[in-house]
C-alpha cells in the first residue's frame, strides 16, 4: 500500500509569478466546483420554510433554522411521511456489528494467507478477490431465496437487520482479507520466526506478534467497511422491504422520491445520511485513503 509521501519533491524549476497564479486559480476553481453541492446542501437545509424557493437556490439563508432537519428526522404526521430517525438507527445497528465482525474475520484470513501459505492458497486468493468485483445483481435472486429460507432461533434473515449483517460480512470477506493480507505481508518474517523459536504456535504468533501490530490495519479495514456498509443501497433495498427495518440510504431514497416532501427537507435528510461517513473522512481521512488505495489491488 503506497500513500503519497508527505514531502514534496526537493528540486523544481522556479516558476514565474503568473504560472503560480494560474496553478492556484485552477486548483481553487476546481475546489469551488467540488464544494458547490455542499454549499447548496448546507444553505438549503438551514433555510426556514418561508424562504425556501427553487428560484433562490443560491441565496444564503437569513439565519440558521433547524426546521428542515427536525422534519427530516421526525417526519410529519399531517403530511404523512416517516422521518429518518428509525432508518438512521437501523443503519447504526447494521453497520457497527457488521464492521467489527468483518474486520475480525478479515484479520484471521489475512494472517493465514500471508504467514501460513499452503498449497493452493495462491489460487484461493484470486478466487476470493473476484468476489469483490462481481456485480451483486448476479447473486441477488439466490440471496433473497436463501435468506427467505433461513430462520435461526426465530430470527428471520430476510427483511431483517441480522440478514443484512450476514450479507455484508460475507461479501466483505474479499476486501477485508486483501487489506489485512497486504498489511501482514509487510510484517517482517523474522518477528514471526523469533516468536516460533520462543515456542509460540499458530495462535501464539497471532496473539503476541501480529495482533498487537494490527491497530492501523484494523482502522483502515473498519473505516472501509463502515463507509461501504453505511452507504450501501443495493443490498439494503433488496433484503429489507419493511420501512421499519430499512437502513438510511433506503429511507433517504424513499423520502426523496416522495412528491409530498419539500426539497429542503430532502436536502436536510441527505445531510443526515452523509454525516457519519463525512465525519469519519474528516477526522480519519488518512486511513480512508489507504483503504482506497488497497481497493486497487496493487496500491
Amino acid at each position, binding site marked *: 500500500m503506497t500513500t503519497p509521501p508527505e514531502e514534496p519533491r526537493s528540486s523544481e524549476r522556479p516558476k514565474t509569478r503568473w504560472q503560480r497564479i494560474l496553478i492556484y486559480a485552477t486548483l481553487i476553481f476546481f475546489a469551488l466546483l467540488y464544494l458547490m453541492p455542499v454549499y447548496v446542501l448546507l444553505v438549503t437545509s438551514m433555510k426556514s420554510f418561508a424562504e425556501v424557493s427553487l428560484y433562490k437556490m443560491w441565496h444564503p439563508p437569513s439565519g440558521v433554522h433547524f426546521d428542515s432537519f427536525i422534519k427530516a428526522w421526525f417526519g410529519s404526521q399531517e403530511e404523512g411521511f416517516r422521518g429518518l430517525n428509525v432508518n438512521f438507527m437501523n443503519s447504526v445497528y447494521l453497520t457497527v456489528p457488521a464492521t467489527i465482525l468483518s474486520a475480525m474475520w478479515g484479520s484471521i484470513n489475512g494472517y493465514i494467507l500471508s504467514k501460513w501459505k499452503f498449497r493452493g492458497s495462491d489460487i484461493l486468493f484470486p478466487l476470493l478477490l473476484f468476489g469483490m468485483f*462481481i456485480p451483486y445483481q448476479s447473486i441477488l435472486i439466490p440471496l433473497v431465496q436463501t435468506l427467505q429460507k433461513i430462520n435461526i432461533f426465530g430470527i428471520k434473515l430476510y427483511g431483517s437487520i441480522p440478514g443484512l449483517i450476514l450479507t455484508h460480512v460475507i461479501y466483505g470477506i474479499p476486501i477485508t482479507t486483501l487489506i489485512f493480507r497486504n498489511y501482514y505481508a509487510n510484517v517482517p518474517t523474522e518477528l514471526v520466526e523469533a516468536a516460533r523459536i520462543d515456542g509460540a504456535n499458530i495462535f501464539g504468533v497471532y496473539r503476541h506478534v501480529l495482533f498487537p501490530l494490527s491497530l492501523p490495519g484494523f482502522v483502515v479495514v473498519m473505516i472501509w467497511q463502515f463507509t461501504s456498509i453505511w452507504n450501501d443501497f443495493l443490498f439494503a433495498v433488496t433484503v429489507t422491504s419493511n420501512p421499519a427495518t430499512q437502513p438510511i440510504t433506503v429511507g433517504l431514497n424513499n423520502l426523496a422520491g416522495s412528491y409530498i416532501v419539500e426539497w429542503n427537507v430532502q436536502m436536510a435528510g441527505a445531510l443526515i445520511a452523509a454525516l457519519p461517513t463525512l465525519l469519519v473522512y474528516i477526522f480519519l481521512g488518512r486511513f480512508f485513503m489507504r483503504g482506497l488505495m488497497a481497493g486497487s489491488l496493487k496500491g
Partner: protein
Amino acid sequence: MRRLTWERVVSVLLITPSAIAIAIFVYGFIGWTAYVSLTKWDQLLPDFTLVGLRNYQRLFANQRFRIDLRNTVVFTVLFLISCLVIGLILAILLDQRIRGEGFFRSVYLFPMSISFIVTGVVWRWLLNPGSAELGSTGINLLFDILGLGFLKTGWYTDPKIGIVAVVIAATWQMSGYTMALYLAGLRGIPDELREAARVDGASEWQILRHILLPLLKPITLSAVIILGHISLKIYDLVVAMTGPGIGFSCDVPAYFMWDTTFRGNHFSRGASIAIVLLVMVAVLIVPYLIYSTRTEAEL
C-alpha cells in the same frame, strides 16, 4: 515436524469457513443465477422449466435493453475520460509544491466518502432545469447569474443528454480517486529522471509528455479497470437521481435488472441481465486479477 503438521491443518481449517462462504455465496449463487436465466420463471412462483438461451435471445432483441447497453457504453466512455483527465490535471498541479496541498486533496476526495444516494438526491436538484414559464433552477440558474445563460440545457430531462447528466454527478464523486492514484504515482517517480531531462534542456511539457505520462501508464490501467467496473455496475446513482428517464434515456442494465426482477417478477429475464453484466465485468476484471496476483507472487 509433527507440530508443523497440526498447525498446517489448523491454518487450513481457519480459512475454510471463508472459502466455503465464498464458494456458496459467490460461485454457487452465480451458478444458480445462470441456471435461473435458462428457465421459464416469469412470475412470483418459481418455474424451473428449462428453455435454453431463449431469455438471452429475447433480451438482446428487447428495445429497452439495447438502449441500456448503449447508455452503458456512453456512460463508461465519458465517465472514464472525465475522471482520468480531471484526476491527472489535479494531480500534476498538486505536485507543484502547493501551499495547502492537504486541504485541496481533502476537498477533491471527500465526495468519495458519501453514498451515491446522497449524491443522486443533491444532483437531482442541482441539475433540475426548471421551466421556461417559472424560470431556471439549479445549475441553469447559476449560469444565468454568472451570465453564462447560453450553457443552459435540460440535463437529465432532455432525452438527448439523459445519461450525460448522470456522468457529471458520477465524475464529481469519483474523480478525486484518480487524482489520488495519479498523485501517488507522480510522487513515486524519482526526481533524478526529471532533473536529468531538465539538464538535457527538456521543457516541462516534454518532461510530462515523454517521461511522466509513460511512467504513469500502469496507474492509468488500474484506474480504467476500477472505474470501468464501477461504471458497468452503476445503479444507486441512477435510482436516486433520475430513474430510467424519458424513453429510458437514463436507464442502465443494473437498473433494468432490479426493476424487472423485483418489481416485475420476471426472474429469468432479470437473471439473464445479471449474467450479461457479470460477463462484461469479468472480461475487464479477470485478466487484471490474474496479472496483479501473478506479478505480486514474483516479488
